[in-house]
């Protein structure tokens, strides 16, 4: 299938899953499963950074419209998209990054994936809850929400990839 079509369908599915299902699952302790950063993460690496920023913004805003968060998701996802190439390069071995066409847990290898995605997701969550609560008096609550949600979101994103991303054949 055409790459463009694949990613467009993914875009819609991620928005709907996040806004209509995950945002309504409330487990208490401030846990929120946030899965849409995975979409930006799975975007091809040779894509223009400016373009991926705009896609991230559009996606975040679509989710905002459906969950009354007024630009909060958009803001956090733009941070994610902006930091993505920087963090990728930081943890890559010599020429891994140049050869990598499409990033996922299989093409990257487990440890590189955990560092990169984990750190990006951490910044995304921290940014999101920092602005959601917007009150430094409640810093403990912000950290609690960030850390707990981070763990659940991360495991959820890994699970999604294990289920849906086809495993490449061994070379």
């Amino acid at each position, binding site marked *: 299938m055409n790459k463009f079509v694949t990613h467009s369908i993914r875009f819609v599915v991620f928005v709907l899953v996040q806004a*209509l299902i995950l*945002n*309504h699952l*409330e*487990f*208490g302790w*401030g*846990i*929120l499963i946030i899965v849409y950063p995975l979409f930006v993460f799975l975007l091809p690496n040779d894509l223009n*950074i*400016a373009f991926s*920023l*705009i896609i991230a*913004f559009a996606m*975040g*805003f679509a989710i*905002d*419209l*459906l*969950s*009354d*968060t*007024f*630009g*909060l998701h*958009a*803001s956090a996802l*733009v*941070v994610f998209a*902006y930091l993505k190439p920087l963090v990728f390069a930081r943890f890559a071995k010599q020429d891994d990054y140049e050869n990598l066409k499409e990033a996922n847990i299989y093409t990257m290898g487990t440890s590189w994936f955990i560092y990169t995605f984990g750190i990006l997701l951490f910044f995304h969550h921290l940014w999101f809850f920092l*602005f*959601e*609560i*917007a*009150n430094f008096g409640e810093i403990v*609550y912000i950290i609690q929400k960030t850390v707990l949600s981070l763990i659940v979101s991360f495991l959820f994103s890994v699970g999604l990839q294990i289920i849906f991303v086809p495993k490449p054949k061994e070379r």
Partner: protein
Amino acid sequence: MKNLIAFLRRFRIFLLFVGLQFIALATYFSSLSFPRSQYLTTSNKVTGNIMAARNSVTHFLHQDETNRELIKANKRLREKIPENYIQISSTEIIVRDTIRDTDATYEQQYTYIPATVLKSTYDKRNNYMSLNIGRKQGIKKGMGVFSESGIVGTVYQVSDHFSLVKTILSMNPNIDIMLVEDGSFGFLKWETHQARLANLTGISNDKPIKKWGKVITRGGGGIFPRGLAVGKVYRVSPIEGRALWNVEILLGTNFKKVQKVYVIKNLLKGEQVRLESTIPKDPDDE
């Protein structure tokens, strides 16, 4: 030269990043202080309809609970019909609980508009709820909303067919509520971050407070009538260094399940506001 171009390239991306951030955060913070962008919420037509479709799939999950609550409320109201009471002593005056529109001694102040909850949250710092009625059904900004078991919040944003309610699970709901037991009153706050617990602030600690005492609205602002249930006293603890109790209330409304709510229309609100606006300003305030 090559470096300069590379630098500008990087810088261009950064500028785009800052620009997008500015748009997103400006929308977000302006919505916190001044709700005017109704097109960016679920009360606009497109997203409102998506939410209505979602609700038609999920609402049956809570149907049983909702029915039980409605039956309970029906029973309670039936028992208040004056025909159910007999006069015991001729010197006593019957106080009728139900008031008829034709009765000259009473004038109706509050009417209620039933609504279905399309979507609600309870786990965020500020929680909102979309209702399936809007301006065409007479909903206006600032009206109170309650469910069978307790108050819910106030209307925050209205479109033609949908409305958005800011629930009491928000930063500062500031609804004046009181203890039934001794009439001491304070403001409703939400500092617990738990869907079932809220705080009652401003109660001085010279008197003990009984656990499970009822908490009701005081009806000062003209948004809620006096006497709507809020919840029950759950825990009382002293605030360090101040002569106040920290009272935690177990809320009556279960925000995880609430399906049917009522929007309160105060027919005399304009009159009250007009009268209160004649209070002369304190010169010290200026």
